[in-house]
């Protein structure tokens, strides 16, 4: 189905498409009751209870007053319905907030301020910097002369880098006034949820441009919920609105997570249900037999000779009702109640408040606290999670000189300061690259200080460091970059920016030095993306593609001996040395370009940037033509500090039997170093690191098998074996050798996956989950969102990379080290308490039920209830609800003990406190207690005056005392 969007034409598309009203609500006022009831009754337990309650209305068979079931049932329904209603009301409020946001649109050539919900398809919407995009737009104009704008798509796909969007060629160069009057038609497909695809055509009507059709791609769109960044303004035509936007179409309600404990309780409930059916059948048959043989002789009960067709069913159904209390109706309510209290305890915990920002921990998902105590695998992001994601420039190596090695801070290295002061040309060029080769935007604040806004933390760190070394990036005015060095002001004209992509792993800028008029290429990038193109080694190395460079790096120590001098070698050493220390390295390089060389290349670049097919690849190719023969200036080392307490936390949790996997987008060396420094893996003699690598399917296969073999051998030894895999090999392994990789995943307690994409992270979580492991994913950035949502438990760190992860997560904490407390204290207590509470609920119900069953044997198997309705209800609601409150505060061991002996978590992990055998124990206990209570209450009255009410009261008080005793004994 195609849709035709008439730009700026209110009549043509007014009523055809939905308006921009967002609606995430599940219910409306009218359908709330029926829809909510329907949803609640789709759960098995509720159906069961409803059936019981309905049967109780049939007074021939009911042993107790129907109110004893209807009351709690209605209460339960009211509770969950009002919870739903409250959630829905909150959704309504947030929708309303989004809907009523003011936006600028153009109507009949006039700019108007309207509410976001009133945007129609075909309207032209104006956005300013940092505005949220209210609906899916086709870009038609930006403040940038090149027709480019930047958007942040994190809310859509979780990627935090800025993406460029361009206006279609047909609208290129149109000015402000013209855009107001633009008319045309966009032919586009019907709404779908594919955020990578938008195949449409734009045709502008005369008098604007000729009648040509201009193709549109996803590059020409800005989608709902993105943010406009680094662009003064942009405007676009609304093509999809409201719930028909790409985001709206892909919005699904995340599946509710079911904890292991819940699953176990469901299983046990099923078992009890079967048991109940058996009891009912046995007693029903016995009752019918007794009725036919004995009861008919008992003239005083006036049994009829013949009954209706359902006569045989009456007694079994009666017993069914009598036994229905076996499955405690209150269990769901009380579990929900205590679970929300656990969550509150997490929110309230003073020891989990981030001391720096004062952010408390927060449990978004209140239903899965017990799972925290059963975690088996933790998958963690590195940057921002283990580390602080606060990049600090620490060391550098400029033309063979190492700075910052002595005191660990190059900015305080006297040698470097002297070199800067003396104006050593190498150092100055190095600093120039640091200050210029970036996409950082300086903002002059009112106080005069310069704030830098950067896409990447690394660039920010470099610019800051350069500023400290007196090379201050002052201003960026259109294409002119203003640098202040000591007292002099230097200007550079940025001619081209060769953007960073994850494939190229480097970025470059071409600038014209306004003082000398020279054209210079400034590059920075990962060592393997820069060093091969250095002019020193270009004879041999330059031919080697950068992708296989890193496998040859060891050889490179030999090669330069006869190809090049000392310099390149010292850079290699520097890179090695820095990544050993866990620092992030970048190589800086430059090359002077000849005027004609640039002019020639510039044409090619322009052409490549305007291609429609494979544009990215073409640009990369063209860039490569310029980025060769580089003169490497030096290496920078940026430190991303470990967060406080990370090594201790990891060590404790590993002792508790939790396996750690690190999934990072960072490179292998850095990842391994960080892993070493935070106790992730042990250093050599004790630990062993196996790596899976390879570029082709065969290589990966071989290395996978080798690793697997080693793993199998070493599993018996108490040795720390970990494997390292990079994104490329991982993809092959997951695609072709899933089984082998799964086996590896089971064998290995530790893994480091580097260079992985967000979707691979999610895939790994999926893999572990498919092996029936309880997984916890922890991360801080938008790229972790998918993994967090996929895992059994998602923990977000409300850190520097924004709050996406924290919002998507089930729990958000301020610092990684709180994870220890979250799992060992909150998770463990929650598990213990829930395990006790659920089994206790069954115990007390079974206790009463068994007594009823025993009594039926002495009351002619007729289904008489020993207890009256009131005492049954009081028993369930009042007498046995106090222990629930007690158990919420129960602590079997003190927090300190658990922290000292994290091994105690094994019990929770293995589910030792709630499984069929413990449940059988509780079952047996209730049977035994029922026998004791029954025998005693029958016999203390013997024959004499054995009145039913008295016996029932004695038995009831016996039950109450016994269960109270059990609670006192079980809680510590």
């Amino acid at each position, binding site marked *: 189905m195609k849709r035709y969007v008439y730009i700026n034409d209110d009549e043509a598309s007014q009523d055809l498409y939905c308006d921009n009203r967002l609606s995430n609500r599940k219910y409306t006022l009218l359908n709330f009751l029926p829809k909510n009831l329907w949803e609640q009754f789709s759960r098995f337990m509720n159906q069961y209870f409803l059936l019981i309650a309905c049967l109780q209305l049939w007074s021939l068979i009911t042993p107790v007053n129907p109110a004893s079931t209807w009351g709690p049932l209605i209460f339960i329904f009211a509770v969950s319905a009002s919870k739903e209603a409250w959630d829905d009301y909150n959704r309504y409020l947030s929708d309303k907030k989004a809907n009523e946001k003011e936006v600028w649109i153009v109507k009949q050539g006039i700019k108007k301020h309207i509410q976001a919900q009133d945007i129609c398809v075909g309207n032209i919407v104006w956005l300013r910097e940092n505005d949220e995009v209210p609906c899916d737009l086709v870009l038609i104009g930006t403040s940038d002369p090149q027709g480019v704008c930047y958007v942040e798509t994190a809310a859509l796909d979780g990627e935090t880098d800025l993406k460029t969007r361009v206006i279609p060629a047909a609208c290129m160069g149109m000015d402000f006034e013209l855009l107001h009057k633009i008319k045309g038609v966009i032919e586009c497909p019907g709404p779908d949820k594919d955020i990578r695809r938008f195949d449409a055509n734009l045709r502008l009507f005369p008098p604007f441009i000729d009648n040509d059709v201009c193709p549109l791609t996803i590059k020409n769109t800005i989608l709902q919920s993105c943010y406009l960044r680094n662009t003064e303004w942009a405007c676009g035509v609304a093509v999809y609105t409201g719930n028909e936007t790409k985001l709206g179409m892909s919005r699904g309600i995340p599946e509710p997570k079911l904890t292991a404990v819940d699953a176990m309780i469901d299983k046990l409930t099923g078992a009890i249900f079967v048991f109940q059916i058996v009891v009912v059948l046995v007693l029903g048959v016995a009752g019918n037999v007794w009725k036919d043989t004995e009861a008919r002789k008992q003239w005083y009960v006036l049994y009829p000779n013949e009954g209706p067709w359902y006569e045989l069913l009456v007694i079994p159904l009666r017993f069914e009702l009598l036994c229905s209390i076996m499955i405690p109706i209150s269990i769901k309510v009380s579990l929900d109640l205590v679970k929300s209290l656990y969550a509150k305890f997490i929110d309230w915990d*003073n020891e989990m408040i981030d001391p720096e920002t004062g952010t408390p921990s927060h449990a978004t998902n209140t239903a899965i606290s017990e799972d925290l105590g059963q975690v088996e695998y933790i998958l963690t992001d590195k940057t921002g999670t283990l580390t602080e994601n606060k990049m600090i420039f620490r060391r550098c190596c400029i033309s063979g000189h190492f700075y910052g090695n002595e005191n660990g801070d190059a900015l305080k290295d006297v040698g470097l300061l002297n070199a800067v002061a003396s104006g050593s040309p190498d150092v100055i060029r190095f600093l120039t690259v640091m200050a210029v080769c970036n996409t950082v935007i300086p903002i002059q604040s009112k106080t005069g200080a310069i704030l830098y806004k950067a896409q990447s933390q690394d660039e920010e760190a470099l610019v800051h460091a350069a500023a400290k070394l007196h090379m201050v990036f002052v201003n960026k005015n259109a294409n002119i970059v203003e640098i202040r060095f000591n007292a002099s002001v230097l200007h550079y004209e940025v001619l081209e920016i060769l953007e960073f992509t994850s494939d190229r792993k480097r970025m470059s800028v071409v600038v014209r030095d306004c003082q000398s008029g020279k054209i210079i290429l400034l590059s920075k990038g990962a060592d393997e993306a820069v060093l091969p193109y250095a002019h020193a080694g270009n004879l041999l190395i330059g031919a080697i593609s950068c992708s296989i460079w890193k496998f040859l790096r060891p050889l490179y120590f030999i090669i330069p001996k006869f190809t090049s001098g000392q310099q390149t070698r010292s850079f290699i050493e520097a890179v090695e040395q820095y990544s050993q220390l866990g620092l992030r390295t970048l190589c800086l390089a430059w090359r002077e370009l000849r005027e004609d060389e640039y002019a020639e290349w510039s044409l090619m670049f322009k052409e490549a940037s305007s291609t429609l097919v494979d544009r990215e690849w073409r640009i990369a190719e063209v860039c490569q033509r310029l980025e060769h023969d580089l003169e490497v200036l030096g290496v920078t080392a940026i430190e991303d500090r470990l967060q406080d307490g990370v090594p201790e936390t990891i060590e404790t949790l590993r002792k508790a039997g939790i396996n750690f996997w690190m999934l990072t987008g960072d490179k292998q060396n850095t990842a391994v170093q960080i892993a070493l420094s935070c106790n992730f893996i042990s250093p050599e003699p004790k630990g062993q690191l196996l790596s899976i690598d390879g570029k082709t399917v065969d290589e990966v296969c071989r290395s996978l098998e080798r690793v697997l073999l080693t793993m199998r051998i070493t599993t018996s030894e108490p040795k720390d074996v970990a494997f390292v895999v990079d994104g490329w090999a991982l993809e092959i392994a997951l695609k072709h050798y899933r089984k082998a990789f799964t086996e590896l995943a089971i064998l290995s307690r530790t893994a480091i996956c580097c260079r992985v994409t967000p979707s691979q992270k999610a895939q790994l979580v999926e893999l572990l989950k498919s092996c029936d492991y309880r997984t916890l994913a922890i991360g801080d950035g938008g790229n972790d969102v998918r993994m967090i949502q996929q895992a059994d438990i998602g923990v977000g760190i409300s850190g520097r990379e924004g709050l996406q992860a924290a919002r998507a997560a089930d729990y958000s904490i301020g610092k990684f080290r709180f994870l220890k407390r979250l799992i060992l204290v909150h998770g463990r207590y929650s598990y213990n308490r829930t395990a006790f509470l659920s089994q206790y609920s069954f115990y007390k119900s079974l206790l009463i039920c068994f007594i009823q069953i025993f009594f039926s044997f002495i009351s002619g198997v007729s289904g008489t209830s020993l207890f009256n309705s009131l005492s049954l209800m009081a028993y369930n609601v009042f007498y046995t609800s106090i222990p629930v409150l007690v158990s919420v505060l129960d602590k079997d061991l003190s927090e300190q003990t658990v922290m000292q002996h994290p091994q105690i978590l094994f019990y929770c992990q293995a589910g030792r406190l709630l499984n069929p055998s413990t449940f059988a124990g509780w079952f047996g206990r209730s049977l035994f207690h029922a026998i004791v209570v029954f025998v005693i209450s029958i016999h203390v009255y013997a024959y004499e*005056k054995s009145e039913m009410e008295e016996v029932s009261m004695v038995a009831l008080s016996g039950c109450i005392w016994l269960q109270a005793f059990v609670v006192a004994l079980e809680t510590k």
Partner: protein
Amino acid sequence: MKGGSASSGGTDAPSNSSSSSSRTKKPKYSKFTQQELPACKPILTPGYVIMIFTAVGVIFIPVGLFSLFASESVVEIVDRYDIDCVPSNYSSNMLAYIQSTATNKTCTRSLNITKEMKSPVFIYYQLDNFYQNHRRYAQSVCFSYTIYFEESTCDHRHRNLKIAFRYVKSRSDKQLRSSKYESDTKDCAPEATSKGFPIVPCGLTAWSLFNDTYGFSVKNKALEVSKKNIAWKSDKGHKFGSDVYPKNFQTGELIGGGKLNSSIPLSEQDDLIVWMRTAALPSFRKLYGKIEVDLQVNDQVTVVIQNNYNTYSFGGKKKVVLSTTSWIGGKNDFLGIAYLTVGGLCLFLAISFILVYVAKPRPLGDPTYLSWNRNPAGN
């Protein structure tokens, strides 16, 4: 990001501290929120366990002995008369005897007092295999339909009784309480109305009222049987109204058990009140009356029984019981035996724990006993 919502305030809290200072994010400290409420955690050390068991044993055994002794001091005479009271010519067809209106139901039994019985001597009647706790009878609501009476039980009332679909209960508490609710008999079918008039008291329970009577005499001197205070005070005061008089009782086509004097209000009909308190067990005793004089050893008590009540159709037994009481009530060895058993068990456990503790002492709280320390290679 700058225009971020309030929830992103965590990262830039210092910059907008003025706006967020009013609603502090830090939760208030309290012992409850930090889960630090005081608690006592008694550790069950061997010493404590042994002490507790010993204490329980030491307390329970004397209590058990006392109870047993008290139970032994109770004198109880039980006489089953249901079979012996049927004349030998009816012994093959006891049912016919009891259902016939022509037969002489009077029966004389002689009880020998083996031990002195101090007053008050309680007289009970005991019924065995009588299900007063049966669902249709005891308490609850049930459903009635076309009724056919079994010939063997009620041959003289052989007829069909059609009662339309109605909820029935074997009694109506409201009706018993006050005359205002006289016609509130909807719970009472099949014994709700008689010829269209409400029955008071209605229901199966009252309808099947026990109607054997006993007369006692010693040495040809009649013993007075006191019927005072055989029913619960609360029953007389609250459950059975003093303004409710029996009406249309046992006037229907079916005659169940005993009749009631319609000039006495229900609250004074002690036999009825006692009967209406349903028994929990199929064998039960109900108080018939009290004899306020002591009975001497070797006294021959003559009991003249009006054997009216039909237990023959379902093989129930009827017994008359004379019993004294002690502080634990009637004769009941169970409590004493139970106390003795539990006490003995506790003492036995205490002793065996002591032996184990002496033979194999183990230090308390030694972490080397923890499972992961014992077997480091495991897992």
